[in-house]
């Protein structure tokens, strides 16, 4: 149990109408987020996500993969996502293997356009993939 305390615990946050579902898998090097994001306190929500990403990139040498199926984002959520993508970019510039896969419902092309705007400054693999909406 003592050894466990040095590990960053994984996130498993259920989604709500205004917050995305978030799951992190330290062992698999994977972080996934799905749904709408316009939380009342987005800093509280995203700080732990950003902290997890930062911690993973600092502690591990393994690749990190983001699997996103985000739909609507309010401004502070957009900012949080930009912060996360910047962390990945910094890591990538230092030679780390990082990647993003953003899935969107093909009935809503706007999502793909916005994901593409996010991708603009990212030099790591960033795929925007049409896929059925998550259940």
């Amino acid at each position: 149990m003592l050894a466990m305390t040095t590990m960053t615990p994984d996130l498993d946050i259920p989604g709500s109408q205004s917050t995305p579902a978030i799951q992190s898998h330290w062992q698999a090097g994977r972080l996934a987020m799905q749904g709408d994001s316009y939380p009342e306190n987005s800093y509280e929500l995203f700080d732990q996500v950003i902290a997890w990403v930062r911690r993973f990139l600092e502690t591990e040498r393994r690749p990190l993969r983001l699997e996103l199926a985000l739909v609507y984002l309010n401004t502070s959520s957009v900012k949080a996502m930009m912060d996360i993508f910047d962390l990945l970019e910094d890591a990538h510039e230092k030679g780390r293997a990082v990647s993003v896969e953003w899935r969107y419902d093909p009935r809503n092309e706007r999502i793909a356009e916005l994901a593409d705007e996010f991708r603009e400054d990212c030099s790591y693999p960033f795929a925007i993939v049409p896929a059925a909406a998550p259940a």
Partner: protein
Amino acid sequence: MNKRDEEALLERVAMLLEDPSHAGHPLQDALQALYRQYRAQQEQLERLISISDRYQQLALEARQVTQKRYERVLRRQQKLSRISDGYQAMMRERNQALRQASTHDPLTQLANRRLIDERLREHDATRRGYTLVLLDIDHFKTINDRHGHDVGDRLLVAIAATMREELRDYDLCGRWGGEEFVLLLADTAVSEAWEIVERLRRRVAAVCIAAGRRRLSVTLSAGLSEHFAGEAPDETLQRADQALLQAKRDGRNRSLTAPPPS
């Protein structure tokens, strides 16, 4: 004095100092001291200039770094605004689509009952006059039974399109039920409404749709009622409905105006 003249002068002085024939001359010693003093000062000045240049360079680089950082923050801010605006636009579109879906009939894209009720309440609140018309497709059930709902639906869509073309921008045309339509003609007396409805019925009767090898067309029956001041919209509707019922009983393919409320 420029650099070259200065160097020429110094060389001349150095040569004079080295000339053995001047050795022991009382000025030689003083000039030697002056020459050394000058050289030392020159060296110091050059060092000073070089240090100053380096400081300037550093300040310039610092400014460039600040500028770069500022531009980066600005670019980030712009990106944030751009993406955020994009999401807002998406939300607005989604709201519009929802509003459209909640106020219109998905098959014919005509107004649905909700929108018509809303508009009736508005007219009531602003005491705006109007004539209501209920229209019903004659023998529509027979068409559905004989040719299937697909043909019936196509007929409804074609009739709806014709009605939309025929009406004024401020008239509201809605699908009231299965094969029943409603017209809300604002600021229109029943006599004027009658002309509109008769023209509309003629246009609709000319609409033809293909059903297999046959071509189908239908007629409309209509009931008109002009809203009277103080009358509840429901009553105006009820009178139009009564008039429509009577038009059907009288043999269909006709319009009938409801008598004023009793």
